[in-house]
């Protein structure tokens, strides 16, 4: 499982670069690298559905983000003068990490999930739905209602984008 560690560490490095680099375009591209790394991780973790989806979504969101930032006048990011806020945020993040680490220790060991529902789905999917891809059987049959919600979320955000991008909101 060493390759998972390597890719994940590279993703963290990419994320820090995306966060700290001054040029916005480079920063967006670094985010894209993190996303591609995530797609690779999905592939290694035996989730090909997610790997494909993550890859194409990453490309799309990269296009949208570049579209939004390119041509914009690049501001020099000013350094913050308030160290107190930095310390507060860093402290918050440290506390978050500490408690998360404690909680995560009580999860089942990596590689041995409980799979109470998962094994049920695996056993019954083909017989009950006729779909060979068990993930597809779950998202569109067993939990199809979730997918209706998911499609609605996308619809909502499209309508939201159209509403936000109107030239004028109020009638004169």
């Amino acid at each position, binding site marked *: 499982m060493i390759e998972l560690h390597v890719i994940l560490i590279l993703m963290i490095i990419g994320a820090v670069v995306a966060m700290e680099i001054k040029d916005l375009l480079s920063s967006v591209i670094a985010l894209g690298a993190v996303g591609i790394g995530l797609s690779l991780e999905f592939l290694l973790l035996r989730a*090909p*559905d997610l*790997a*494909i*989806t993550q890859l*194409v*979504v990453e*490309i*799309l969101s990269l*296009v*949208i983000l570049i*579209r*939004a930032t390119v*041509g914009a006048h690049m501001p020099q990011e000013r350094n913050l003068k308030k160290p107190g806020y930095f310390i507060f945020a860093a402290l918050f993040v440290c506390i978050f990490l500490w408690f998360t680490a404690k909680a995560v220790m009580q999860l089942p060991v990596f590689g041995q999930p409980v799979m109470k529902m998962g094994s049920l789905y695996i056993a019954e999917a*083909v017989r009950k*739905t*006729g*779909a*060979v*891809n068990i*993930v*597809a*059987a779950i*998202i*569109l*049959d067993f939990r*199809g*209602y979730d*997918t*209706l919600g998911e*499609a*609605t979320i*996308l*619809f909502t*955000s*499209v309508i939201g*984008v*159209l509403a936000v*991008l*109107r*030239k004028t909101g109020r009638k004169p």
Partner: protein
Amino acid sequence: MKETAGMSIIVKRITKITVSLIFLFGVYILLHGHLTPGGGFAGGVIIALSFIHLVLAFGKDVALTRMNLAVASVIESLGGLLFWGIALLGFLGGYFFLNVLPHGRPFDLFSSGIILVCNVAIFLKVGAGLFSIFLALALLRMPVDDKETHR
């Protein structure tokens, strides 16, 4: 004006070839969603990307003659209604979202009942929706008149 819009002739030439291939790949991913990895969502994003590819290569004006924001949003609503209708179809069997269509033989293209149809509905919705997000963002930067954004 038409000549100068978009990118160079090399890009346009290659785009003409690749766009149809990307489109075909999207349809393949869509139709085999229940057999192989992929499905309506990934397929829809790929189709949206193929249209975005066209827009980027040929400039907005050329692409808008084929597919504009109004058409995209109608297709999106239709996709949503189709998905909603499939969910309602389940009432024929007594339950919301029941898989009422025949399941067929596993490993066949036309198997697994509503899953294939749902994939098509999601595909329409996602493809049209994401393309219209892109168009709306792209059109906003155009200083000249934008009839398409007025609805």
